[in-house]
């Protein structure tokens, strides 16, 4: 009778029922959501901080009304007031600061001063600079006596954003976004690294627990050591999968709630409506429609981003992720299981951990480099070598990987993980029953060659 399911069930249930599992599972999405919410709240609070600024010009009214008020900024143009008079008591008068524009500004860019008690935020400065630059440009152009100048300026006002398109083997051109590819590469690589490492080391701790509490001898008198090892590895993989899925759903749920409560603005609903429209309708005519309708360029950009996100090879990414998670996890978990079996307690694992940690951290570093330069030969080799390939290949896929490379990498992965599981099982079988021996790589090599 096959007893692996009984083992898997125990490994799974004892972990899932633990308080620490429940707490982490609930807390992690809250923390992740907090990472998104807090900066948003901070930004919104900053904007709500209302500032009134006095604008003083030296005996002219060239720039009167040029700097427009915004939601949080009010510019008050004061005539016949000297800067020096206001300087001492602008605070009491309710001003955040004094903007002093001298007439030389047309030729001397730094002939403008903002006097305030606090360091002014960058947004305020940019707003002032942009407004003044535009006005000075306009005034300079005026001196050329061009007809219909205002209309011309309106017409030439342009924004540029480079659209990247990828041409497939079949000649179909698709929108892509380097930003989105980078984000996917980052998330894919990092998630792979974390899952493999966290749950791989849980396997190790489980093995050590059984060894130190001597449960293992009772169990291996009922089942084969390799069954116990595989039962544990699979059970923990299911725990990881459960936690991962709960995280995905909780995070999505929390984000939906945030979207509908905190960011409840007309603007946003408009964006999402437009985005749904652009997904439903064919894309090229939509662009034309946009131009015809004079749709806000920002909106077009968001739509573009959205459509290129949809154009990512999602099926390939998800399938590869599952493949590399399963094989990569099995590979590392079996190494961790072998290490756990070779030591008497957790402190002894240190000497073994380093050589195992190095390839996976190297993989993560190469993956980060891959985002900058997906075609580098380092990325290529590391995405083929099985110890680094799960992390590196996940970072490469969003940028496009030739199928032969992907298949070669996967084939190498399968061969290697089978070999590692087999070797780990041999070490494990001997290691779990060895106590008080100074464990070393040499010792493990000897165990590998013991007969049944």
């Amino acid at each position, binding site marked *: *009778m096959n*007893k692996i399911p*009984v*083992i898997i069930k*125990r490994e799974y249930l*004892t972990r899932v029922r633990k308080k620490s599992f429940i707490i982490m599972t609930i807390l992690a999405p809250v923390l992740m959501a907090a990472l998104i919410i807090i900066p948003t709240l901070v930004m919104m609070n900053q904007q709500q901080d209302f500032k009134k600024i006095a604008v003083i010009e030296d005996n002219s009214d060239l720039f009167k009304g040029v700097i427009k008020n915004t939601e949080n900024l009010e510019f008050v143009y004061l005539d016949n007031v000297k800067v020096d008079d206001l300087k001492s008591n602008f605070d009491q008068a309710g001003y955040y600061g004094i903007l002093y524009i001298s007439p030389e500004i047309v030729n001397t860019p730094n002939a403008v001063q903002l006097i305030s008690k606090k360091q002014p935020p960058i947004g305020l400065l940019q707003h002032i600079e942009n407004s003044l630059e535009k006005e000075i440009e306009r005034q300079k152009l005026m001196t050329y006596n061009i007809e219909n100048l205002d209309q011309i300026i309106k017409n030439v006002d342009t924004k540029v954003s480079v659209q990247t398109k990828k041409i497939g083997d079949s000649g179909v051109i698709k929108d892509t976004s380097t930003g989105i590819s980078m984000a996917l590469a980052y998330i894919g690589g990092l998630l792979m690294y974390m899952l493999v490492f966290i749950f791989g080391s849980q396997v190790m701790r489980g093995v050590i*627990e*059984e060894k130190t*509490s*001597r*449960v*293992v*001898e*009772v*169990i*291996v*008198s*009922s*089942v*084969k*050591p390799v069954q116990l090892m595989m039962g544990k590895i699979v059970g923990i993989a299911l725990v990881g999968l459960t936690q991962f899925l709960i995280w995905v759903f909780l995070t999505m749920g929390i984000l939906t709630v945030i979207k509908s409560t905190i960011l409840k603005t007309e603007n946003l609903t408009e964006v999402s409506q437009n985005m749904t429209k652009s997904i439903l309708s064919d894309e090229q005519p939509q662009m034309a429609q946009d131009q015809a309708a004079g749709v806000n360029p920002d909106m077009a950009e968001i739509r573009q981003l959205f459509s290129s996100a949809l154009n990512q090879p999602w099926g390939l990414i998800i399938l590869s992720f599952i493949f590399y998670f399963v094989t990569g996890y099995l590979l590392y978990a079996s190494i961790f299981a072998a290490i756990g079996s070779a030591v008497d307690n957790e402190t002894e694992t240190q000497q073994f951990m380093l050589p195992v940690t190095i390839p996976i951290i190297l993989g993560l570093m190469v993956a980060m480099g891959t985002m900058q330069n997906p075609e580098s030969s380092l990325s290529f080799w590391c995405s083929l070598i099985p110890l680094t390939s799960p992390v590196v290949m996940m970072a490469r896929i969003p940028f496009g990987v030739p199928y032969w490379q992907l298949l070669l990498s996967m084939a190498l992965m399968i061969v290697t993980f089978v070999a590692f599981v087999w070797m780990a099982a041999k070490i494990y*079988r001997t290691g779990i*029953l060895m106590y008080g021996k100074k464990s070393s790589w040499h010792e493990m090599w*000897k165990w590998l060659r*013991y*007969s*049944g």
Partner: protein
Amino acid sequence: MALFEAKNVTKKYGTQLALDNVSISVPERCIFGLLGPNGAGKTTLIRIINQITGPDSGELFLNGHKLNAEDVMSIGYLPEERGLYKKMKVGEQALYFAQLKGLSKAEAMRRLKYWFKKLEIVDWWGKKVEELSKGMQQKVQFVTTVVHEPKLLIFDEPFTGFDPVNANIIKNEILFLRERGATIIFSTHNMESVEELCDNITLINKAKAILEGNVYDIRKQWAANEYDIVFEGDVNIPENGRFKIISRQQDNGKSAIRFKAKGDDDTNEILQMAVGLGKVISFNPSLPSMNEIFIRVVESRN
């Protein structure tokens, strides 16, 4: 008929010989003592019987057929180093071990209830193992060893960690299991319990089986014609070529003498001689304890 047999078992770990051509034969319904100093190879042999590891050469038979993977269900093993999951509840844990031995959940539940009641540990079903005293944990472990009603039971130092009362309970359970038809391999360093419980033994030293057979036969074999006699009053046995005094104690008006007779003397003749010397209170042929035999055999080999 032998329930279990190991024939010419050899096992090496690297270059180190753990078992060298060891054979044992365990009759059905016998309590079989597996003895030997630390590191002699007992644990290796027990692990081979449990199929935790395989022998390099040699054959094993259970109930007449070659030992195979299915036989783990017919064997119960209580290792010397007891082990339970500390964070797991007692009941769940017992169910888990029973299921690993091939019982269905319902059947495991039914049998565990019986044993928990019998050993009066029902109240601990929902407790975590770490909340239990060592003796209580031992009882739980004992139950998990016997719950699948194996034909062959292997107990490695079953009485350590128990107080005398609980040790006696466990001893009676072992005898009860034998009554019901189980065969027991019993490994211990406590020679008194070997004399008390075991029918047959094998003594392993330095990977080799060096002494085997029925306990009483072995003790008689090692007896070397020594006798203990107690007389009333101050009496002594004359040392002539026939008897050799080993020790003599005199107190409370009695004389206790241990002496050695020549090999061909019959007990009746010795007793007749003794009656002529004075009033005999007691007379016993002195059998060496298993402890003495153990020490003498092992030391003579070293």
